[in-house]
């Protein structure tokens, strides 16, 4: 099985449950944990999941393909706006909206992929920012489609399966979001460990060499960008469905930058890293900003500095470190 070759640099456990099953178990456990520990915070947790999908999407291109981008929110935001408009136009089935978001995201991903992956290094970064800013400016100008600075509001999706309403307490939204996250995560695990995913990582490590062994680099990267677009688009769709409002912030530069920060915090190049990073960052931010709405940004800054100092490869490497130490302790036992 190629599955186990690249598990985040950790030594593969000898007898183990398939990776996908573990992922299902872990996301479900996390979901249940969130529901039981914070039953009054579901709205926040739902928003967290939506952003997590954006971070996962960013991980696919930045972590796995080495594409530097600071405009990824464009995918997320555009899909949120498309979903919002679809809902306002009367297509209010949540599953249909999710599909609309995925398609919109795929299109955005492929288009920005075509542009951004043509270049490397700094030009690539600048181009990604340019794409992001262009989309943000358009979103501000086309206020008939986006509501401009006032935001696109009044989005009220129908009941899930015709039964469960998306209400203020956010239970439906939460369960729905956890389920979506789980499916996406498992599929992504499959993809990044597939020959296609491994080839992308090879391109990231040494694109010249990948070309020498016959890989067509550019189409692969664009394709991965498309996959990433689907994931980001689903995130944007969840955002529109759950909050019922889409604002300019969802396409903004800050959203892109924040996603990158979360990814680096958790550890780029690992889906687990993206997951951990976005959860830790947002939970921390949520609690600190509620406890002290006036000076919370300072605390968030302190967290980031601490992580960069103590775990420069992200929190996931810290996990690997601890696991490694625990394993060696076990081994030493007679």
């Amino acid at each position, binding site marked *: 099985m190629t599955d186990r070759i690249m598990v985040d640099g950790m030594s593969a456990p000898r007898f183990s449950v398939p990776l996908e099953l573990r992922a299902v178990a872990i996301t479900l456990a996390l979901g249940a944990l969130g529901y039981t520990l914070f039953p009054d915070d*579901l709205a926040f947790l739902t928003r967290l999941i939506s952003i997590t999908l954006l971070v996962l999407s960013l991980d696919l291109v930045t972590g796995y393909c080495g594409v530097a981008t600071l405009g990824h929110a464009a995918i997320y935001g555009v899909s949120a706006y498309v979903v919002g408009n679809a809902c306002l136009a009367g297509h209010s089935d949540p599953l249909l909206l999710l599909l609309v978001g995925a398609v919109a995201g795929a299109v955005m991903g492929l288009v920005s992929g075509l542009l951004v992956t043509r270049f490397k290094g700094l030009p690539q970064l600048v181009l990604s920012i340019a794409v992001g800013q262009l989309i943000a400016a358009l979103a501000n100008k086309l206020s008939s489609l986006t509501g401009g*600075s006032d*935001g696109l509001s009044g989005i009220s999706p129908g009941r899930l399966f015709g039964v469960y309403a998306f209400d203020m307490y956010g239970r439906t939204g939460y369960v729905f979001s956890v389920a979506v996250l789980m499916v996406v995560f498992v599929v992504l695990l499959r993809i990044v460990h597939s020959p296609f995913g491994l080839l992308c990582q090879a391109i990231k490590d040494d694109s010249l060499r990948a070309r020498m062994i016959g890989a067509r680099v550019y189409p692969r990267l664009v394709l991965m960008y498309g996959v990433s677009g689907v994931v980001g688009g689903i995130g944007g769709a969840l955002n529109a469905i759950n*909050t019922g409002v889409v604002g300019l912030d969802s396409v903004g530069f800050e959203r892109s930058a924040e996603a990158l920060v979360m990814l680096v915090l958790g550890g780029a190049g690992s889906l687990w890293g993206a997951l951990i990073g976005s959860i830790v960052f947002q939970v921390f931010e949520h609690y600190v900003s509620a406890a002290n709405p006036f000076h919370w940004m300072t605390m968030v800054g302190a967290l980031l500095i*601490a992580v960069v100092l103590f775990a420069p490869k992200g929190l996931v490497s810290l996990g690997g470190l601890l696991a490694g130490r625990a394993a060696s302790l076990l081994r030493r036992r007679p």
Partner: protein
Amino acid sequence: MSLRFGLVGAVAIATAWISPAQCDTIKVGIIGTMSGPYALFGQNFKYGIDAWVAKHGSKVGDHQIEFVYRDEESPNPAKSKSLAQELIVKEKVQYIAGLYFTPDALAVAPLLEEAKVPMIVMNAATSAIVEKSPYIVRTSFTMWQNTVPAAKVAKARAAKKVAIAVSDYGPGIDAEAAFKKTFEADGGTIVQSVRMPLNTTDFGPIMQRIKDSGADMIFTFLPAGPPTLGFVKAYIDNGLKASGVKLLSTGDVVTEPDLPNIGDSGEGILSTYHYAVSHDSPENKTFLADMVKAGAKPDDITMASVAAYDGARLIYKMVEATNGQKDPDKALAAVKGMKWVSPRGPVSIDPDTRHIRQNVYLREVVKQDGKFLNKELQTFDAQPDWGLAKN
């Protein structure tokens, strides 16, 4: 490991700041711009409320009132909505108040009826907000309210050709419409109308367009905050002031904390607004003294603190009327038609629109004893929200 402990410690300290809830505590959630570029106004919400509490105690009857603050940061409707949701579901607040930006207030509005929570808007100034839910009251102002007098001033000061420059979002569009309608009805001409994106920082090109339009007066609105300073500076630096083009604005553009930064060249800027910190009345004197006691620096006080002070008055009245029960209809009924003398002058809550009726003043930036202030020149009595008034 030290990282782990650091994190745990930080979270522990952070949570320790939240004071424990007491029995029969009525919670009021305040959503305001507590950090970032607009932090001054969020802090003004807090000072205004603190000043009210310091004066009138933290209890209404047997009910302890507790204010819970959340940070809306910037125009971010999705975040504001989820903050409101959190306040309602988790903190179980009976009232929501604050709301600096229109998009944020509009995002929260749909929650109110389901949650049976009244909302007291302490800043957001688009007329339509109060129409989004019967549970919304506003103690700040609207663009129409402050702009209609501005258009009358323009006419009275013999302006013929006016260029309008407003921020491109709800309140800006309201201001543009209000000015245009009133001024054109009085026979004036609008020669140029510019909508500036909210995040504009370079106003040079806009000034050039206005210059080319041959206007003899500019009417402008931008939300109070850092950009207003940039706008006024660009107006002066591009030579419009020197060439005799007058600047007329709503008071948002010349809030008192910005005046020292604008400096001497700002003298003579006209604005119409509902509150000047220099307003001469005994109520305002006491209010300013209470504000300083509550910890505000005298130079940091703005209109947001007055709206919060009066908003707290409404909340106390609502709690009293409902005896601490969750009864939004009764609460709203209690404040409709309410009249009092605010630090800004005599005010009342219009029973039909649930918006505050108040005097609007024409002011001019002057230097007095080395300090800049907005000197009141003329009073427009008891202005309704012209955007909603049925006339």
